[in-house]
């Protein structure tokens, strides 16, 4: 763990993109998230790590209000994006999700063509003026997801016919196509082989230039490879949050240390 060259990675925190204060999440009677407060910077990759069931995915899903779709879930506290409370009554979650894109654990392309998969977001949000415009958006998104070279000749083929890694990059392209400001990734590589994982990680690196990326991962090495900031969750609490290098080399909390050294989790 010491040879991972975290130290040479400098973090340029310009602005805070997401601010969470005292966030509580309840699933029915279960208190899934307790008092989480965190500041997520812009143009940075922030990793959420922690043992299974610690609430990192739940917290991630709070950031674009995907928890709204679960009827028993209840969120308290305050989450702001660019200073606006996203749980304000005037906020339409549909509009929020156009701004905060999400990539899921399992690649979930629509059973439509590759083109339609990527074009779906721009279409429903009216981002393209005409067909040529839409073609441009699709190409740009696929290029960003490093998938263009592989699929440019078969855009009308089924998205579900791609390999697992390609499918996940297609999902990233689909999320990127709506030009979000924040990209949430829920264990995006857990269903992928090492080569595909490497491709997706490289992609995350590049995405950082334009987006604030929040990634939940089970793999500590992945967190240390791709992120600048790391938050360690344990049993619904945010135990420690800091620069990735510091978390992995010099954790302040005993629970973090136990986790990253493999004693729990």
């Amino acid at each position, binding site marked *: 763990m010491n040879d991972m060259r975290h130290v040479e990675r400098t973090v340029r925190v310009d602005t805070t993109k997401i601010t969470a204060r005292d966030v509580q999440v309840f699933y029915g009677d279960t208190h899934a998230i307790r008092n989480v407060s965190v500041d997520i910077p812009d143009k940075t990759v922030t990793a959420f790590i922690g043992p299974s069931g610690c609430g990192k995915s739940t917290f991630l899903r709070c950031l674009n209000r*995907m928890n709204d*779709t679960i*009827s028993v879930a209840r969120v308290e506290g305050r989450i702001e994006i660019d200073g606006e409370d996203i749980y304000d009554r005037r906020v339409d979650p549909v509009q929020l999700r156009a701004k905060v*894109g*999400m990539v899921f654990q399992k690649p979930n392309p*629509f*059973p439509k063509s590759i083109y339609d998969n990527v074009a779906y977001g721009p279409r429903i949000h009216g981002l393209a003026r005409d067909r040529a415009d839409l073609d441009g958006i699709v190409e740009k998104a696929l290029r960003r997801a490093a998938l263009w070279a592989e699929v440019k000749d078969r855009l009308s083929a*089924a998205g579900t016919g791609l390999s697992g890694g390609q499918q996940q990059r297609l999902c990233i392209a689909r999320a990127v196509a709506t030009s979000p400001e924040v990209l949430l990734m829920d264990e995006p590589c857990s269903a992928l082989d090492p080569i595909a994982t490497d491709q997706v990680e490289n992609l995350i690196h590049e995405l950082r230039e334009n987006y604030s990326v929040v990634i939940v991962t089970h793999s500590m090495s992945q967190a240390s490879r791709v992120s600048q900031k790391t938050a360690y969750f344990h049993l619904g609490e945010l135990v420690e949050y800091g620069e990735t290098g510091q978390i992995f080399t010099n954790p302040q909390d005993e629970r973090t240390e136990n986790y990253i050294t493999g004693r729990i989790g």
Partner: protein
Amino acid sequence: MTDATAPGAVPSGAGQGSLLARDTRTAKRNAAEGRFKIYGLVAVCIGIAALIVLLTSILTSGLSAFRQTTIDMQVTLDEERLDPSGARDYDEMARVTTFGYAPLLRDGLQATIAAAGIEADLDPGDAMDLISDESIAQLRNRVLDNPDLVGQTIDLTVLASGRIDGFYKGRVSYASAELDSNVSPEQLRLAEALEERGALRTGLDWRFLTAPDASDTRPEAAGLGVAILGSAYMMLIVLVLALPIGVAASIYLEEFAPQNRWTDLIEVNISNLAAVPSIVFGILGLAIFINFAGLPQSAPIVGGLVLTLMTLPTIIIATRAALKAVPPSIRDAALGLGASKMQSVFHHVLPLAMPGILTGTIIGLAQALGETAPLLLIGMVAFVREYPDTPLDGGFFDPATALPVQVFNWTQRSDPAFVERASGAIIVLLAFLLLMNLTAVFLRRRFERRW
């Protein structure tokens, strides 16, 4: 894992000893599996055997309904009898009843017998019994529709009476004719003589599918025309009403409705409704649609509404199952992109659920097509000889019958010829059901193959 690793719980023998020798436990398990397979096989064989017996019995007694014995003859349409005034006026001509037409056919038959050189020791009235009474009415209708025929001599193919028809289908024999007041051996002999000369024959006849029902004494003329139309109209109504209502209700309940006591109650009730005996729906239809809303009795509209009520739970349950089967990840993907709930349902969930919805709908329709009990209560068991109008002319409100009710009706009649008619109607019903199920299979394949 947990009980296998529990201390002291490792049974001696499991996983120990030679792999070449089968231990008693394994042998027992294999025997149990073998026995289970045999039970299953026996069950399947019993099912197939029952099906084969059923189909054979229906086909053997019903296929002959599609064949009909007819007699060819020439009939002179005597103006003196049919239109004494000579004005070809419809009302004037309509005064001549079938009694006026019977002698024409009788003379025509006698002429045919004479021309064939048959020496019949039957008086003309008894010979006339070879011809179905229905044919006289048919001739009258034909003349009234074309008054110009009066005065001409026309070639006519008339239906043989039920007993003669039965003679050629194996129902009637010389021995049975001795005891039968409706037919005599002499008449059978005459029929055979006519057949030898080519004037009488038995062949394929689609009038069974097109003709309306006929009275108890004329089984040879009874057909399914009105029943098929009535059933088709009702299926149309059920499809148009039950599919949109059922799909909309399912989508709401499955995707939008909050989970609370009310929706739970509704869900339980929908499941219960699917199990309500169909005759109860008939009583409901009688009370609401006929007695309260004042819709006409025996009309396809009432039958269609009742069957819609009966089919809705089936469609809702099937549709909800189909919607549930769509992986949640698709919904998440759409919602995560900023699609609204409705967009995620209509763009992604519904197309994926379509095969299941269509299958459920067609199964519901097939169920409705075969339903008899509720239709009895709303008067569709009536004797209807008039074809309903086209739907555009208000045909949904005209009296009609339905296929299963027609079967029920015919099986209650005394003449043995109606057994053949009823079996024939069952064949038609089964053919329609088979067609609908094939459509369901085809649609499912078609929609699933898209990706």
